[in-house]
């Protein structure tokens, strides 16, 4: 099962080799998340409309390996943007991917950019 996690590794802006053109901005809910398919991978994209910011992470929750994070709720913890998993409410920083409940899990996070009304996800 853990092999799923092998497919997802955090990528920083400087490591990006390809910007994957995901979908028009209008397809993403405001202040919520949606899931993008990149080949066999599932990437959750979060639209923080209030702040005009976007984040992306693996869609699979490292707790029970289900493809659900895009359906979780976004929010902040003392200034850190975060996502709460809909299954057991474990929360993760969307900046670093670390678990914010002090547990051992982390998620992979990816850069996002918006150009000409389209959402792009940085991959390599």
């Amino acid at each position, binding site marked *: 099962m853990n092999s799923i996690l092998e497919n997802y590794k955090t990528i920083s802006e400087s490591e990006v080799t390809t910007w994957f053109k995901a979908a028009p901005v209008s397809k993403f809910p405001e202040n919520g998340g949606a899931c993008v398919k990149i080949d066999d991978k599932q990437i959750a994209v979060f639209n923080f409309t209030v702040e005009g910011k976007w984040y992306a992470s693996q869609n699979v929750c490292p707790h029970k390996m289900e493809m659900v994070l895009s359906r979780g709720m976004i929010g902040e913890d003392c200034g850190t943007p975060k996502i709460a998993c809909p299954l057991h409410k474990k*929360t993760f920083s969307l900046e670093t991917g670390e678990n914010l409940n002090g547990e051992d899990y982390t998620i992979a996070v990816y850069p996002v950019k918006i150009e000409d009304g389209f959402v792009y996800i940085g991959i390599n």
Partner: protein
Amino acid sequence: MKTILVIGNGMVGYKFCEKLMAKTEKGAYKVVVFGEEPRPAYDRVHLSEYFADQDAERLSMAPRSWYEANDIELITNERVTDIHRDNKTITTISDKEYVYDYLILATGSSAFVPPIPGVEKKGVFVYRTIEDLDATMAYVAKIKAEGSPKKAAILGGGLLGLEAGKALLDMGLETSVVEFAPRLMPRQLDGDASKVLQRKLEDLGIDILLNKGTQNIEGDEAITGMKFSEDETLPVDMLLVSAGIRPRDELAKTCGLEVGTRGGIVVTNDMKTSDACIFAIGECALLNHMIYGLVAPGYDMAGVAVDQILGNTEAAMPTSIDMSTKLKLSGIDVASFGDALNENKESESIVYENKFQGIYKKINVSKDGKKLLGGILVGDASDYNMLHQIFLNGMKIPENPEDLILGSRGGEDASFGSVLDLPDAAVVCSCEAVTKGDICCKVEEGFTTLKGVAAETKATTGCGGCKPMVNDLITETLKAQGITVKETVCEHFEYSRQELYDIVKLKGIKTYAELLSTHGKGKLGCETCKPVAASLFASIYNDTANVHNVIQDSNDKFLANIQRNGTYSVVPRVAGGEITPDQLIQIGEIAKKYDLYTKITGGQRIDLFGAQLHELPLIWKELIDYGFESGHAYGKSLRTVKSCVGSTWCRYGMDESVSFAIEMENRYKGIRSPHKFKGGVSGCIRECAEARCKDFGIIAVDGGWNLYVAGNGGANPRHAELLAEKIDNETVLKYTDRFLMYYIKTAGPLIRTAAWLDKIEGGIAHVKDVVINDSLGICEGLERDMAGLINSYRCEWKEAIENIDENNNRFAHFVNSEAEDSNIEFVSLRDQKMPKLWS
């Protein structure tokens, strides 16, 4: 660099590492920890909770990454087999050798199994490690699968045994506790206290057998009974032994360290063994001829050992070690402190016993009447923390010492004043040795929440028993500074849910963004305050979950309950549980078409499992076309009103329970509330609908209906309390409207009616006064608000389907593809499908 080897990675072994890291620079010592168990140290004190959720991580003291971050080498699954003191090395089971400068023995203890013939039989377990619990649970599952009701026994009626008894009872076994002594918890309670406790346990459904010596364990391969004497045998299907502990001193013994005659590694009060380079701490250490079977003294020992190694030769255990304990059984208060049994014959006792309420309180006061020396509390231990502090700190007691347990009569003041009267040095959290001074200091520095104080001081992070007192200290310190405290929703709102309700209603706030920008902090909010706001908009404007879908809890967002594999369940409303054959066929057709697992729920309706997100609107479209509507099984809202067949069919029925249940379910359907709520209607006092474990329940009696409120099934079962007797249908509806609306307006987030009633000042008497006598003059308003909600009901699934935005469809798994989630896998089970198990 010197090397410290720690043998044993239990609670105390871990605490040693933590304290060492707090006092030294990283890398000052080379530290290697050996643990025989497969996982890093976990919280054994709360082991029973594992029965409920099997979440080993939640019990973990620190993840492996903590050890790595502190450069501690943690080797689990590796027993140390020998100590060679002459060349200061140890060897492990896999023949590895390590050299030490200091050696810490934190090997703890093992469960003591008395040598009764037959204890080796299958079905006999102990209660010490997570693996023990796994084995116990697997056996319970196995015997329960055989069908007939199964019986379990606990050998030993001490603290641990009673906890285990409750756990087995909760697993659905008929449970008996067998104790050799003439009373329960013989080390903490006297005979009278034990009797009161016994009655309470029997009320829960646990059988208590005292004065029983077990001669033999009966059965061929597996246990079938316990034989007490020639003509007395207790038939049981399994046995949990909780007859005390034995210190694990085998390593110490073979390398020639001094051990006690009845076990335990002898240490002096600096925690050194008979070899000055070797320390023993925790439950393996024999100090003052005693094994202290509690964590708090173990943690102190860890601290002393750290200080000694760092060169503080003065560090030592205190001469008197506090052994006070509180039983962790939900619903049963038992505590004892100090010299509870008056063993030293230095005190006079004052006893209060109330057989009606099952309360027993005893305090032992010094002969001069000036000092509290110990005591026992059964049935009501709410004053335990305060009495314990008065005892520990030798504080002055009232002129009439009985005021301590009876409360002062006549005067205004509480008999022991305020928590602020405690001396600053009073240790409030004994697990982490945090004093009142430490806590108040942090509050004054601005850490005004329990979470904040816990993070700063570690108070409450051990056994948690000091939580109420820490809370009181925070509240009182703030009060003393002229600040009043309230239960706020989360870091983003400085208001309670009730206050937010009023704000939203009075100011007419309609969106979360507006609420956050006008009354909150920050720009984003979180998963706590967003659903609270959504629930308020629903309770005030009857907005459906569609309106604010991104601030809804996940289940409300997709109008379905998410299941373990990320698929959803679909539950159409079946009011009162009444369903026609045609409707059954229609549901069956849909379930077949979408290959859904079907099951009858506890609320008398049909649950269809395994729907993928994108299938939800398709399935609901078909259900709605047949005339079904949302069952709101996913919402914090009315679930079902369960009914028995009542006078229409039942020969005992006094009234038409089905008709009334349908009426009530349709009346309250769709109404959002602080938590889910359920109703029940029974046609007579035989109570086949189990109405008294519902939030509102009515039972037909001679002359009308009895209305009960605030019952609960679930994790904390509770019978509903009588609100009104022999009332007609119209009055039932009137009172229920008022009751529910009063709850919706005033309860905190995620508080069920039972917990709400527990907290409300004046309890059921107050609620009766408000609902029946209109003592607050709000009934007209409550009825009006309720009528508003009832009249604006609409089916939110119908609404969702009519408004699907193809361009921004929340029910699509991917935004850029029509594909399904290929991660979901099913396997088959009894001719249906089920999610593939988590690995």
